[in-house]
Every structure is written in structure tokens, then in C-alpha cells.
């Protein structure tokens, strides 16, 4: 496989030709915020809108998960424009996230917390309105607990459930009503979920958590 050399934040890194920039950066220890990216998936969802970077010669910031690396590419993961976009996307996600870190099982292992730490974003909603939806927690499964109020709609669970589980998870609804649901929208406990728990391992936040621990 051919490798290419590119520069990210002043560092020279090697990457496989055609690989998406996000993975090239992450594999080289350069962090770019991301939630919906799944390694090896042919069509990136590009849904979370957090992995914006600047590439020299491009008129505006682009998402790193969709941009294949090319020889000589010069990338910077930070710029006023990038920071502004990422901050807005992050704050939008928070405005729709049930912020309850202290009692959340994913406290200290949450990707939203990580992004806040890396980019020095406050973990609260200041500028925007809080969009409360009062969604019910689904506690029906013996192994998995689903709290839709914390879901960031990254789609990792849907993907892993189809890859390794029974494929009961999918997206339902449109626009602001979009959410993760089971086939037929029945509670997880009656859905044909085999309790493999893979979804709880890929969920970046506290939306899908295991019950055993």
C-alpha cells in the first residue's frame, strides 16, 4: 500500500493513500473531536459536524472524516473558523443532551467530556436554549440501559448492532424527532436484542450503558 506524507499542525506524518484524514490524525496521536466516525466504513456519516479542520488551499473548513489524505497536504486542526464551528456543534449537542455527569455511568469516560477538555469548552449550555424533550429511559433489557435523552445520534450502535449483534437498532423519526429505536419501536427487552452489549462499548456517551457493572 502506498503511503503519503502530509503535515498536520506542523508535524510531518505518514498515512495510507486514500485514507480519511481523521484516521491519519488520530493514528498519529493528533486529536480531532469526533463522535460519528467508524473506522473502515465506506461512506462516512459525517453527521456530528465536530471534526472540522483547515486544509491549505481550501476556501473553508472541511470535515476530516470525509477528506482523503493526499501527498503534501497541509492541515491545521485549529483556527478561529474551525474553533467556532466545532464550538457551535458541540454546544448544539449539549443543548440537546441530558447533562447529568455526576450520576452518569460514563462520567470521566465520556467523549463529550473529552472534547470539552481538549478544546477547553465549558460543559454547560450558556449561549443557547436548553432543548428538553423528557424522553423515557428504557430499562426493559436485563443487560443494556438506554437513555435517549443522552443520545447524540452518532449511529455507532446502529452500525455495531448490524455488524456484531442482531441488528435490532436503527434510526427512527425525522429532524428534531430523530432517535435511535428498535425494530417496531418496542422496548429493548422485547426487541430480539441478544444482550451482547457491543452497543454499550461503542456508545461515546451515556446513552447506552451496561447494567452489570
Amino acid at each position, binding site marked *: 500500500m502506498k503511503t503519503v506524507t502530509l503535515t498536520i499542525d506542523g508535524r510531518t506524518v505518514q498515512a495510507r493513500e486514500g485514507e480519511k484524514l481523521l484516521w491519519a490524525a488520530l493514528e498519529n496521536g493528533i486529536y480531532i473531536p469526533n463522535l460519528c466516525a467508524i473506522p473502515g466504513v465506506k*461512506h*462516512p*456519516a*459525517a*453527521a*456530528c*459536524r*465536530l471534526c*472540522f479542520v483547515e486544509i491549505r488551499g481550501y476556501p*473553508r*473548513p472541511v*470535515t476530516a472524516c*470525509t477528506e482523503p489524505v493526499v501527498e503534501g497536504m497541509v492541515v491545521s486542526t485549529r483556527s478561529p*473558523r474551525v474553533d*467556532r*464551528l466545532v464550538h*457551535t*456543534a458541540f454546544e*448544539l*449537542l449539549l*443543548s*440537546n443532551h441530558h447533562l447529568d455527569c455526576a450520576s452518569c455511568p460514563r462520567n470521566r469516560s465520556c467523549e463529550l467530556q473529552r472534547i470539552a477538555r481538549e478544546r477547553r469548552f465549558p460543559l454547560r449550555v450558556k*449561549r*443557547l*436554549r436548553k*432543548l428538553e424533550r423528557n424522553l423515557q429511559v428504557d430499562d426493559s433489557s436485563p443487560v443494556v440501559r438506554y437513555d435517549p435523552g443522552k443520545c*447524540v*445520534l452518532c449511529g455507532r450502535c446502529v452500525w455495531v448492532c448490524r455488524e456484531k449483534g442482531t441488528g435490532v437498532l436503527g*434510526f427512527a*423519526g*425525522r*429532524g*428534531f*424527532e*430523530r432517535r435511535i429505536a428498535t425494530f417496531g419501536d418496542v422496548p429493548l427487552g422485547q426487541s430480539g436484542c441478544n444482550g451482547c452489549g457491543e452497543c454499550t462499548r461503542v456508545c461515546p456517551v451515556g446513552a447506552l450503558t451496561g447494567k452489570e457493572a
Partner: protein
Amino acid sequence: MKSSSIVAETFAKLQQKSRTAWQSLRDRPLILVGTATCGRAAGALEILKIIKEELEKHGLDAQVLEVGCMGHCYAEPLVTVYKPGFPPISYGYVTEGIAARLVQDFLGGDDPCLEFALAALETNDMVPALTDFPRGMIEKPIILDRCGLIDPAKIEHYIALGGYAALAGALTREPEWVLEEIKASGLRGRGGAGFPTGRKWETCRLAPGEKKYVICNADEGDPGAFMDRAILESNPHEVLEGLAIAAYAVGARQGYFYIRAEYPLAVERVKKAIEQARQAGLLGINILGSGFSFDVDVFQGSGAFVCGEETALIASMEGEPGLPRHRPPFPATAGLWGKPTVINNVKTLAYVPHIIERGAQWFRETGTAGSPGTAVFALAGKVINTGLAEVPMGTTLRELVYDVGSGIPRGKAFKAVQIGGPSGGCLPETALDMPIDFDSLSQAGAMMGSGGMVILDEDDCMVEIARFFLDFTQKESCGKCTMCHLGTKQMLEILEAITKGQGKPGDIELLLELAEDVKAGSLCGLGKTAPNPVLSTIRYFRDEYEAHIKERRCPALMCRELIAYYILPEKCERSCDACVGSCPVEAIYPNEDRIKVIDQQKCVKCASCLEACPPQYKAVIKLSPPELVAERGA
């Protein structure tokens, strides 16, 4: 014999047959009834029935044809009569009585009933022709030219008037020639963004792969837009011919019409057109003996607005949820089933036969240098003559609103025009003299969009208009990307607060910040353009936003929470109780002088009293902010 001469000869025979059929229509009186959706909504099918009954009753010999929409939707039902010895005359606002009179007096006698005539279709000494009116002088129909004059269900009408000659001509040349002609014409996509059609086709043609597709995007979904529907209902063969030429140019053998299921008549007429074209040998294997094979199917969309976006349209055709994907790859290189695919709007394809037949240079003679050709607009809202108009690019808004549309009804003042639907923007009076084309509109903060044009008058609140359109895009957002589904939601929440008088200082600035980020950060065109109505209304009508926030006042007296109804004591005619009877919640009572007073606690602001108050008194008014009522001592 060379294949090109076979094509020419086969087509000449087809043309001859069609012309004979078309000319035979002229031997006896001919009545055209516009039965597109606009006509049907006004009762055209009833009129059609009555005309047929009357003809039968009076034993008169005449042909009756169902035709499409001429663009004069305001005057529907529309009937056109061809009678030997008379110019063809169109009659508007046709009622059952008028229909009967036309049959009895005009066809039965020789009285052309000019009191009901809208205009003649040709210049003559008897009746003013359409082209004698200001509208007729500004309009320059290319793709609407035959709409409303031919039966969309009869391929021979289309062929007799020159249809399919462009396809037959193209098939005698190389595909590259067709491509070059479209490129040279400067044709830009009429779906909204205005991307050069020739470049799209070229990308697809050069993309590697044996299998390619062409798709006609008829997923028209903007509120107030009906251009594509009217064309498909009135002249489906024009679009079908354009699609076939596109297929020949890019090397596709299969095409699709993606039509939303809410357009049942368009679906029916396109299906019929496809069937007739197949029977005539203009679709299918070895078209006209040229060796080129191409066929078309109809795919019905389920009504999601976002499916008008190319990648979402493809996803929905592939059986996936209609969600957009990241571009690139663009459909022209990897589209339907991963194959190179050209997706063009209905109107874009409708121009193609005309350009191929009359040449790129001819097309460039109309319109502006950057946007050649004409633009089709659907005039809706507060304008007298609603309907479709096709005008050269570069026509000013003023000409469109005042000459084509005949101005604002009921003597109200013009306020703004909303162009381009939910992706477009609102332009104020100062923009009226701006020549409209793709570039001038985007510079002004609006967008050509697909051609929807909603005219707003002094009674329309611009904050409410922005809220309305954002509510639409918010509901139609697919929910996939953060910026769009949460960003528009946040913006909508702010706008809702402002229209309810709960706006806060800084809300305008926050709206502007969010709008820029949603534009810059969204995944697809829906999110990238959704903030336009907000941005343009803030740009041109910021004072209205400020009045809502700072004074709790709606200058247009539209926002329900910011107005109160009030009866002027000096104007109230004491012995009249019209308002009292009209009020659904018994909020109006007479005081000791029998002057009517509104109990503001009970009032639900339905405006019934305002409408009930006889026009000679005009005693009911709206006040904003509502606190003004207390100041007046009520």
C-alpha cells in the same frame, strides 16, 4: 443506408402523421379546457362536463380537448375556443353559465361573447391579444410555450408543433456535439443552485463505467412553488425529450422521473407520455433506427422535502431512508447504485430540446451573460395575477410584480418578495429594480431556488415570515447532522420567542451567529441554505425584529401575542351589533352608551369582529403592543 438517414426518414414519417392529425383539429370548432391541477382546483372538470353536455344538447359538432396550464392560474377555469373565422379566444373565470353561453352563442350562433374574453391568442382586429398586455410584452415563453395549447396526453400534438425533432436531430450527430452545444449555451440548472448543466453532463460522460443513469428531479417541494408540476401536467413530452437527449449525451440507457406522490396528475401524464413515446419508437431499443437505446421509468417519492437533494433522492431510490450523504463523490461520478448519474430539474431538461433545435447561440440571445435564457416563476401570495410566468433572466422584480402580476391586491403596499422558497430570502422594496438572475439574487442574500415567488404586503410581519420558513425547514430536516437539526431548532426557538414578545437583547446577534454556522457547517444543501430567510429578513428588516424585542410591538400587526383588537368609540355605530354576533367567545359587550367594547381577557384574537364591522364604520382596529388598549382607557 446510413443510420442518420434512417433516423431522419423514420422521424419525417412520424412528423407527417402527427401534422395531419393536428391539422384535422382545425377543420371544425375546437374547445380547449385547462385541466391541470390549478384548473381542476377551480372546477375545470365540471366546466368540461357542461361543455360536452351542451354540445350534445344543441347537436353541435366540435372537438373538446383537455389541455394543461397556460400560466394564468388566477383566471382558472380557463377555456379557449378556436372557431373558423374567428381568432382563438381565451375565456377566464369560466362558470357553468359562461360555459353554456360559449357553446350556445359562440358555437351555436356567431357571438364570441367578448364580455367574458380574457384575451385572444393571436393578434387580430377584434380582441386584444395576450401579447398586447404588459405581461405579454415581458414574457418570453420558451419552455411554457406549448403549455395549455396542446393535449398533454397526445404525443402527436407535441410532435406536430416541432416536438422530438431535437432528439431526432441529436441522434444523427455524435453525443459529443450535443454535449458541446449544451455547454456553449451556458444553461444552468433550474433546480436552484444554478450549476452549469453542460459541466455536470461532461463529468458524467467522462466518468468511467458502462452503466450510467439520468434522472429528472420532479420532487418540487417549496411552499408556494408549482412550476415543475405545471410543466409535467401540461407538456410532459418536452421534459421526456430533454431527458432522452441528456441520456444520449452522457451515454445512459436508463432514465427515471423522480416525482413526488403528491402530484398524482403529473405522475399519470408522465406515465402516459412514456408509454406513447415507446409506441412511437422514441423510447426503447434502437430509437428511430439510430442504434441508441434508452428507456424511462417513474419513481414516486414519498414527499420528504430533503429528497429533492441529489444524494437523498438517490438514497430514497435505492430503498434507503431519504438522507443526504457527503459530497464528493458527486452523483455525476458515483450516483444511483454507485454509477455515474445526471440529475436535472424538470425545467432544466425542458430547455434542452429547444437549445438542441435552435442552437446555443439562439439561447444566449435571451437573458444575461451569466444566466442565459429565461426563468420560470410561480407568482403566489399578495399579488393580483397569481400563476406561472416565464420571463428573460435579467427582468426586474418590479416588472414581475407590477406588470406580470398586476401589483398588490386591495390597494395595499408592497413590502417584500420571498424568492427561492425556504432556501431563498426576502428582498425589500429597494431591490425591486434589481435585474434578477442567479448571481444578482445570491448577492442580495436570496436565491433563484426553483422559482417560487411569494409576494408579501404591509400586513405581513417579516419575523413571522422567517419563522414560518424556518419552521418548514426544521420540520423537513432529516435529523442526520447536528448543525441542521439542532441549529435550525435553536434558531426556531429564538424566532418563536421573538414573535411572542419574549425576545431578549442579543437574540438578533445570536441568530446571526447561528445562521452563519449552520450555513457553513451543515452536511447538505438543506441546512446550508435554511438560514437564508432569517439572514435576509434581518438584513433588510432589522427594525421589525428590534420593534418586537425592544417594544413588544409587531409593526405589521400580525403576531397574535403582540396585538390587541380595539373598537374605536368614536367610530362605533351604536345601533349595529355585527361584531357582538360575530365573536365566538362572547368577548364583546355594549357599554352604557351602547358603544361596543372588547373584553381583552376573553378575546382570542380571531379577527372575526374586524371582518364583521361594516366597511362604512371601520371601527375595529388592531393595536400593537397590546398595552396600548389600556392607554386608550378601555
